[in-house]
């Protein structure tokens, strides 16, 4: 467990213990000192604990481990370890083009305003589908909306390999079209092998540590 989480748990425990004193002996709030203590313990500490806890939970919800904790996502986790550089997700994960401990979030969040909030709302929808309906098979999972090039360009825009790449510049109209999201990076026949979980059992897996 991360040190930060341990610290928050300790703070929650201490706060609960102090509140317990007020619950057991409410008479102490008659004095001035007791009133100040009640204010701190019944208002300030719970707000502090709640804010720190939410911040910690939001950070943890970005981790690869968190996303892969649902059984249905396991093949997607395995697809990050395919030993084939043409697999887009695997190549990004294994070569640290995305942080390995937040790989899913880095590519699947929305890099527009309120993108993180939208990602959390989509996550809540995933929980609803997973627990309260019949979820599709992993190979049948589809994105809610077509993948936007903006998410790729968040890192690749301005990079020499992207801007000066021979294939990207073979047709002078290609790069402007990609940047305007008129030609998709992943569904236009260029980088179309992303997770491809249906064919994972035929693939060789990388055994190393990211």
């Amino acid at each position, binding site marked *: *467990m991360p040190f930060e*989480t341990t610290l*928050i*748990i300790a703070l*929650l*425990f201490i*706060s*609960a213990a102090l*509140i*317990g004193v*007020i*619950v*057991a002996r*409410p*008479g102490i*709030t008659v004095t001035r000192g007791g009133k100040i203590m*009640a204010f701190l313990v*019944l*208002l300030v500490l*719970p*707000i502090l*604990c*709640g804010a720190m*806890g*939410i911040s*910690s*939970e939001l950070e*943890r*919800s970005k*981790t690869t*481990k*968190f996303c892969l*904790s*649902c059984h249905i996502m396991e093949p997607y986790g395995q697809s990050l370890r395919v030993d084939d550089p043409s697999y887009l997700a695997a190549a990004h994960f294994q070569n640290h083009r995305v942080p390995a401990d937040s790989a899913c979030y880095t590519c699947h969040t929305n890099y527009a305003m309120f993108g993180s909030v939208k990602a959390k709302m989509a*996550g*809540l929808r*995933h*929980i609803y589908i*997973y*627990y309260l309906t019949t979820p599709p098979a992993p190979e049948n999972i589809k994105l809610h909306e077509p993948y936007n090039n903006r998410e790729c360009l968040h890192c690749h825009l301005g990079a020499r390999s992207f801007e000066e790449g021979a294939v990207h510049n073979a047709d002078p109209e290609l790069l402007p079209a990609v940047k305007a999201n008129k030609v998709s990076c992943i569904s236009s026949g260029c980088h179309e092998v992303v997770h491809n979980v249906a064919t994972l059992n035929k693939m060789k897996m990388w055994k190393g540590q990211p």
Partner: protein
Amino acid sequence: MKLSENPLERRLQVSGMLLILGLLTEMVCLFWARPLSFLAFISVGGALLLLGILVYLLSVLAIRHPQQ
């Protein structure tokens, strides 16, 4: 545990109990990094904390001074 007969103290006790329940829920949720614990943290823990704080604030607002 017996609730106090003084209305203000009773409200503070209710507020405290709600807050303890909320904090304990959040504490348990922090042990797991899973979607359900995230949901429980936000919805159950958060709601209990909010309710406890509201009861405390209402109990403070409801105090009547002798001249009133």
